[in-house]
């Protein structure tokens, strides 16, 4: 029944493939939020990883906790791109869409590329489901899907038949249909069902009949592909595993990266981690992750509000711990005064902002990079502080460790920007060798003789981190301007100038110690430099790689350090005719850079839709400048 060949197109439309049998594939599962779509996605991810695929995943779930079943706003989806080493995004367009109900089809069809494979549960497309999704006619039958390869299968019925003999109720049998669909997709990609079967057995250890029913559904879906001889799309069948660096790997989301990075910063510094936070989407998951580590030596504190979260973290740092606060946009706005205090008191503090679409409540689950101005400038008075941005899940781990090192070494608050995309996206991550990770030096060897709380290290300009309980070092900190050296309250005009200059000079010292800016992909000079920061890295790198492979003179430079900026930028900018600054806001970094480098021709590539860049969008924009 499924014998016509699928149209072979690049999954990332608009850029070339190295060959017809190569290239990544994009699969999207969609259903009601009660259908277990995210479970299905994580199981497929695990299986893909164990098959040696490179991958990037992205969940797309509704903001509503329990939206009415069958409605379009209750649709939950999960997208994964699998394939070789070049997979750096979750994919622009979908090759295989699994739609478990009409609402899921309606909200996800636009992502399916023309000619792509659509697998739908025919049983779910009855009158009531169609009405809830707003379909006047059944799309599976009215010819509206002729541009795709449609596989309308009675998934509910087939699941029931497979699962009922396992001793479950009819309702329990039907809920296994997500695993039936997963079994079919496993068959298409020649993936192993055993890890999922093992997971089901352990997940439902207390209800073995449920585990058996789901496993039966998984097997039945797999068998269905086999016995109907469902020819998988040839290109997809040929998706080749990647050949990554040897090592041990795991799946890592941006949240995982932050959680483990903070745990690592604690282990590397010997400082007890105090993560103080107030629940907010999407940053809450960091609090959840760290709260599980209470027995391992991590302190978490769910504060009464965002301000208390920031100030409690400051208090923890004052008392000698590693104070960290994490939040998302609205919470960041509330922390502004506390960041001024940490800057004035010169205490180490890490502030994580998992950015989301704003202003105000905005779109809490959607990505945006629009807190950059707030991070760079959002304090009253002149309060410069380092601002770093994580470029992806794995980079979150490294960035947060660097933030901790900077905070402790220079006695300063540091902001780390992540976003709703990086937070929830997952990629394979090679475990670092913990023994070789560089330690974070904490200098508590402070001589009481001649001690002054604001006497600085001549190199770093850091003041000594004397903490309560240490003998002979009692001192007072405060938000009132303090005398350079002694720390006494001072309204002296010259002292304020000196202290303002010193706070700024600290950033210069940090800059001097940063690695210089570097073009990471493409040509070292030429027509266009694509400049980005944060979660846009995957799309930018992929697009620039493709264009450079075509022979275009284009490079990609990605900034982790947004304040202070790394050395060498002016020299690099001079090697290109134009610098395209790509960001998910209306041009905040571009405006900032234009002020600092007036001689450079900057052009903005911006998007504020709550969605990440597609590779195709970047490709098209860069081609415009390259032509």
């Amino acid at each position, binding site marked *: 029944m499924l014998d016509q060949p699928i149209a072979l197109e690049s999954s990332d439309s608009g850029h070339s493939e190295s060959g017809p049998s190569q290239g990544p594939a994009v699969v999207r599962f969609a259903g009601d939020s009660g259908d277990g779509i995210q479970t299905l996605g994580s199981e497929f991810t*695990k299986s893909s990883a164990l*098959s*040696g695929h490179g991958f990037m995943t992205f969940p797309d779930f509704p903001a509503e906790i329990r939206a009415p079943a069958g409605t379009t706003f209750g649709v939950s989806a999960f997208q994964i791109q699998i394939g070789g080493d070049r997979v750096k995004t979750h994919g622009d367009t979908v090759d295989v869409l699994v739609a478990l109900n009409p609402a899921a089809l309606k909200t996800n069809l636009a992502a399916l590329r023309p000619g792509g494979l659509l697998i739908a549960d025919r049983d779910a497309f009855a009158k009531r489901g169609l009405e809830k999704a707003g379909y006047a006619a059944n799309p599976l039958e009215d010819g509206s899907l002729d541009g795709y390869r449609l596989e309308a299968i009675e998934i509910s019925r087939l699941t029931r038949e497979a699962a009922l003999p396992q001793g479950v109720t009819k309702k329990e049998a039907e809920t296994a249909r997500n695993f039936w669909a997963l079994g079919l997709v496993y068959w298409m990609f*020649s*993936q192993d069902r*055993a890890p999922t079967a093992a997971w089901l057995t352990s997940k439902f250890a207390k209800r073995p009949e449920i585990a058996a029913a789901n496993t039966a559904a998984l097997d039945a879906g797999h068998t269905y592909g086999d016995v109907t001889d469902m020819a998988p799309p040839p290109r997809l069948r040929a998706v080749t*595993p990647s*050949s990554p660096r*040897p*090592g*041990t*790997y*795991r799946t890592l989301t941006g949240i995982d990266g932050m959680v*483990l990075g903070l*745990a690592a910063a*604690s*282990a590397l510094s010997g400082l007890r981690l*105090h993560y*103080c936070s107030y629940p907010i989407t999407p940053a809450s998951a960091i609090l959840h992750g760290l709260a599980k580590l*209470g*027995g*391992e*030596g*991590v*302190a978490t*504190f769910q*504060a*009464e509000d965002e301000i*208390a979260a920031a*100030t*409690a*973290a*400051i*208090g*923890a740092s*004052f*008392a000698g711990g590693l*104070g960290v606060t994490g939040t998302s946009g609205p919470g960041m706005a509330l922390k502004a*005064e*506390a960041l*001024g205090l940490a800057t004035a*008191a010169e205490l180490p503090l890490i502030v994580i902002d998992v950015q989301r679409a704003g202003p105000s409540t905005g779109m809490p689950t959607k990505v945006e990079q629009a807190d950059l101005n707030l991070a760079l400038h959002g304090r009253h008075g002149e309060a410069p502080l380092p601002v770093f941005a994580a470029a992806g899940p794995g980079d979150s781990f490294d960035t947060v460790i660097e933030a901790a090192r900077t905070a402790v070494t220079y006695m300063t608050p540091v902001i780390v920007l992540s976003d709703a995309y990086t937070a929830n996206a997952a990629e394979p991550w090679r*475990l*670092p060798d*913990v023994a070789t*990770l560089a330690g974070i030096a904490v200098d508590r060897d402070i001589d009481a003789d001649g*001690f*002054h709380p604001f006497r600085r290290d001549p190199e770093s300009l850091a003041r000594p981190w004397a903490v*309560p*309980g240490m*003998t*002979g070092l*009692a*001192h*007072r*900190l*405060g*938000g009132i301007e303090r005398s350079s050296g002694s720390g*006494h*309250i001072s309204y002296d005009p010259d002292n304020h100038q000196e202290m303002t200059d010193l706070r700024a000079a600290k950033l210069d010292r940090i800059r001097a110690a940063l690695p210089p800016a570097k073009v990471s992909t493409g040509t070292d000079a030429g027509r266009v430099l694509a400049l980005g920061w944060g979660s846009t890295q995957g799309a930018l790198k992929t697009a620039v790689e493709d264009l450079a492979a075509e022979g275009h003179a284009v490079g990609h430079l990605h900034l982790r350090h947004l304040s202070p900026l790394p050395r060498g930028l002016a020299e690099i900018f001079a090697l290109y005719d134009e610098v395209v600054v790509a960001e998910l806001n209306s041009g905040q970094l571009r405006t900032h850079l234009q002020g600092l480098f007036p001689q450079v021709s900057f052009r903005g590539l911006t998007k504020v839709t709550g969605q990440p860049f597609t590779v195709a969008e970047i490709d098209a924009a860069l081609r415009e400048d390259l032509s």
Partner: protein
Amino acid sequence: MNVMNPDLAAPATDAGPQLTARDFTTDQEVRWCPGCGDYAILKAVRGVLAEAGRRPDDVVFISGIGCAARFPYYLASYGFHTIHGRAPAVATGVKMANPDLDVWVVGGDGDFLSIGGNHLMHALRRNVDLNLIMPNNAVYGLTKGQYSPASATGMRSPSSPGGSVEAPVNAALLALGAGARFIARSADTLQDHLPGVLKAAQAHRGASFVEILQNCVVFNDGAFEAVRDKGLTADRTLRLEHGQPMIFGKDRDKGIAIDWQTGTARVVPVGDGGPVYDVTVHDQTNLALATILARMDAPDLPLALGVLYHAPADDFTAQRADAPGRVIDRATLAGLLAAGKTWTVGEAAAGTQT
């Protein structure tokens, strides 16, 4: 210099009888208005610190913004003058990082009841081991005299020229509602009373809340005259003693009798040397009694001073499920990184595919 105690070069021990108020005194010039009630409070605090005997190095004063928030600068301990209202949250972080410190939080009625009301409430309900002392002058002093949440209705001020229309908050009642386990009240000039209250607050493990009625000589002079004035205080206030009948008056001729059915207090005469059978005995562990006492005020009833409520319970540190003092080590970290599903890529090729 910021290190104030050359004579503490040999650190004092916690045995501490050798400490004096001077050991907690910085060389900073105290800058409150002449006649400000905060001077008397500072004096009492220094004395209590000396008596409590903790090393100045183990004592921390945290404050927010306001006249009272200057306290840390005048105490030769560790100190942190933070931002308006947030001192209880900062102090919670300090206590999390080092539960062994003796942490004091000083904030006025603006700091604690207005901008920082939220943080006060949560520090109290969490029972963080803090000594929260609130000099209450019922006015915003540092910003030049606007009415505060504790000001009497009708108070004329630069921001209420026609008289404030707002009802004042009852701090002790608020603390009770928040679940505080130690609530006391005193006044700045009552040097025969305030130190004892502060000492009890310091000794209590958990959040101790002390309201100290304080005279602002510039913007709200005389607000608490009936409490502070030597001639009036005996008749206008009731000094609570746990386990003792609640008797007051210059001639100790009045008592407080509680009507438990209506939850009200009334003044009853106390016979000359005779039985005081209908005078209620103060029980500082009785929440219902504390609630009635917290509400007593002029003109019909004396203001209750002393420890209104003291019912110890596990403090925040004791309640927390984490392992205090423990820090993740590298071996633990390696385990965390490898937790869950992992796969290994060998030198030759990727993992197997079935």
